[in-house]
């Protein structure tokens, strides 16, 4: 899976088009490829309990609607599917 800035824990979204890096303070796009300092942000698509079904939709725990790009930092059930 190719990671973009939008998948990084250091990305601060300003709006849907742009954000800044919390480390470098530089502006960046959510769709830019991640740099070497990137760390994955907890998202459904990285979660053990997420199952992708079709574009941008899936299931949580095999039963509940979910979507891959939702930030899961505050989800108590989040578990990494793969370690970094």
């Amino acid at each position: 899976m190719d990671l973009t800035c939008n998948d990084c824990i250091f990305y601060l979204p300003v709006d849907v088009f742009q954000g800044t890096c919390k480390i470098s303070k530089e502006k960046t796009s959510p769709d830019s490829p991640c740099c070497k300092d990137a760390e994955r942000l907890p998202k459904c698509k990285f979660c053990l309990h997420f199952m992708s079904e079709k574009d941008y939709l899936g299931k949580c725990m095999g039963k509940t609607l979910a979507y891959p790009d939702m930030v899961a930092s505050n989800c108590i059930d989040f578990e990494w599917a793969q370690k970094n």
Partner: protein
Amino acid sequence: MSTPETAPANYYGHRPNDKIETREQKPQPSPRAQVARELYFEAKSSASMEFPYWYTRRWEELEGEIPIIRRAEALKAGFSHLTPAIYPGELLPMGKAAYLRGSYPMPWLSESFFMAAEDKFYQEALESGKLTADTFTTMGTGGGNVTRSIGNVISIAGKFGLRVEEMPVMVEVAKRWKDKSVDDIGHKYEQLVPGYKEKEAIMRSVICMFDSGYTLPQGREVINYYYPLQYGIEGIKQICDDNIAEVAGKPEMDRLYFYQAVRIMLEGVQAWIRNYATEASFLANLEKNAIRKQEYEEMSERLHWISSNRPRDFHDALQLTWTFHLAVLNEDAISGLSPGRVGQVLLPYWERDIKSGKLDHDKSIELLECMRMKFTQIDCFASMGVVGGVLSGNTFNNLCLGGLTKEGASAANDLEMLILEAGIRCDTPQPTLSVLYDEKLPEEFLLKGVACTKIGTGYPAWVSNPVAMEFLLKNYGHEGMMPEEARAWSIGGCLETSPGSWMPLELDGQVHWIPGGSAPATSVGVHFISLPKILEVALFDGMDMRTGERIFPPHRLPLNTYDELWTAFQKYFSEAVHVLTLTNNIQHDAWRKISPSLINSMLKPDCLKLGKDIGQMGSRYNTTFNVETTGTANLVNSLASLKLNVYDEGHYTLDDYRQATLANFGYKTANETGSFSLIDQLPNAHYDTWKKIHKRSSEAPKYGNDHPYVDSIFHEWETWFCSMAHNYQSLYGQPLYACQISVSTHGPMGAVTLASADGRLAGTTFSDASMSAYPGTDKNGPYALFNSATCWDHSESQNSQLNMKIHPSAVWGREGSRKFLDLIRAYLRKGGFHIQFNVVDSRMLKEAQKNPDQYRGLMVRVAGFTQYWVELGKQIQDEVIARTEYEEI
């Protein structure tokens, strides 16, 4: 005459120059606020699905639970999962969503407007007239609006950007609310109202702008920060626990569920605040700059503290009030949630910090500038007709200054002077400011307000304290309001007079009586009736000639006399108010059952005391529904023209007028010319046929010139309207009252209206506000306009609104300020309720229309709010340019 730049000591103002004149120079904001403002200018309005996803997920999990508990759990899930976003340099973190201008859809209110145009939900909504106003609204094409889809971003309602990866879940979540949302449930039952089909026709013709129950069910009210300040969140939870123990198992069991729901909701708010605290710690660990690192550490500690406890100082109190302001905005689609007299609420903390040396004036102003930036970032996710046609992208968070204390002395204070200073230095649209004018307010304070108005901020607006109190005592006296409590009032939204209460805030063993709102939304009910359109339909015996659709049954009056014409107008206006009151009552009933207010209810006295939310009349005052109108001057001028030219002097017949207005007096349409302003309209090939009747119509007496012929018609309208509104009952069994603001509705409503008998042409924008003259027709100076505007008793209406445009040269310098204050006083002393100003050279606005990129920071006053020029739709831009510009006062 020398220019202002070369004559700094010119105290008396001067004639306008040949070139565009700028406004008076002003101090700049702090570097911190400047950074925030530059980031704001770059940011686009952005929507996310995080909150609605978690809300819906939890809601579905709790099928069968007590509805108010289900709602509380859904809110808790939404708040607990919001991703925190803290922006560079911020001192007051927290936002609606994880974008600088973030917002989100609330499909539990309404789910059709943000679906694709070809979707059957959208088509059904269009058919019922709910979305007609959207199609006649022009959105601002610049600034932060995402007007078209591009790359991985989808444009919604011409304003909000949504990441493409969130689009499928938005559609999926929306579909889950089909037939369950407030909109759908309300629609199901409103169809049982006799005459419902008439209501749909009214909406399709845009005689009424929009329904209120599912669009903006809360707002146009004043928040109350008392409980969090006095008790802290843990303290409020304890109040809930005590009451739960008291009421469990006893009659009026709904109290039990209310207290439990508040408790659950507060747990969500606490989690939300603590997630921000964790993020601040995370940023502190990343931060290399020692000063900023310390700011993050202090921020984290502060957020942790206020997530449970009472505030310790001014900064804590400011953060806590901002947090609860946001929390309310996140529970419903809301415009016009006013912080009210927050400079008086926070004064005890500020005075203590100043005294102890913890704060100085510069630091205070910097914090207040940060507050301004946070309020300016607020967006409201709503349909194009609502967010563009009504709100113009603004959300009307009105901060009020002055007025009187509980004991009746001037309430103006030093912190409010700094709020004005922050408004001058950091001139942003929000919070807009209003001075509650009373003769007791000190001159220094008033001149500070004038200094702020003069630099072109459009704020403060000037509103009459005695007129507002009189209105409140007339309309809330039966609910127990006394003069002392009437003094606690404030403006909710752009200009809605709202009841308040004095609450005993304890600090250091002293009691400080602080004002705050004590009523729910004061502008719900019948939302904007187009007066010129009603007259048009009356002339055509109930038909909308633009669409060919019958709106009302034929009135069958021959219209042989002016009195018959007036009767026909009254009949259709009354029918519209009648059916819209009933259908909106049903929508609001659906709202209070499906999506009751919990956060706002908890804050409003006396909900927590009574164990009732605001939908169950838990508020101290509940007479808050109203009837709103648009296009007053065009109605009055049209009636005057018909009275003169048809009935009194007989130059023409009504049929002549019908034909002339259908032919648009021989002019091209506004859409053909590309301008919505009368002065830009161009004749067509039939101009000669209609030019005489158009000339007579344009030359008939016009409102705003102290002319008894037309002012008597205006007086008759006002007297009748303010009285008839009381004939209708709200959901809460209370009489409605008149409300007279246009916000931005005079644009789209003008767009669907034929030419009118006053000479206004088809599709052009109506006169703004309610006391404003039609652009260019007030020819006898401001004092003649004041005489016309005050020929009726303003305390009979929730508000009245007067916009004036003044050339910067007219108020230049120290003496210009004095003259300006004299002008304001003159109007308010005559009994006027409200006056506000654009101090701007119209040529600058025309230049900005041509070159918007060079005017990103230019602000103008529309009707009760200030907005960035580039974020206004063309209908409103053209109207503001066309307004009469006074070069002398």
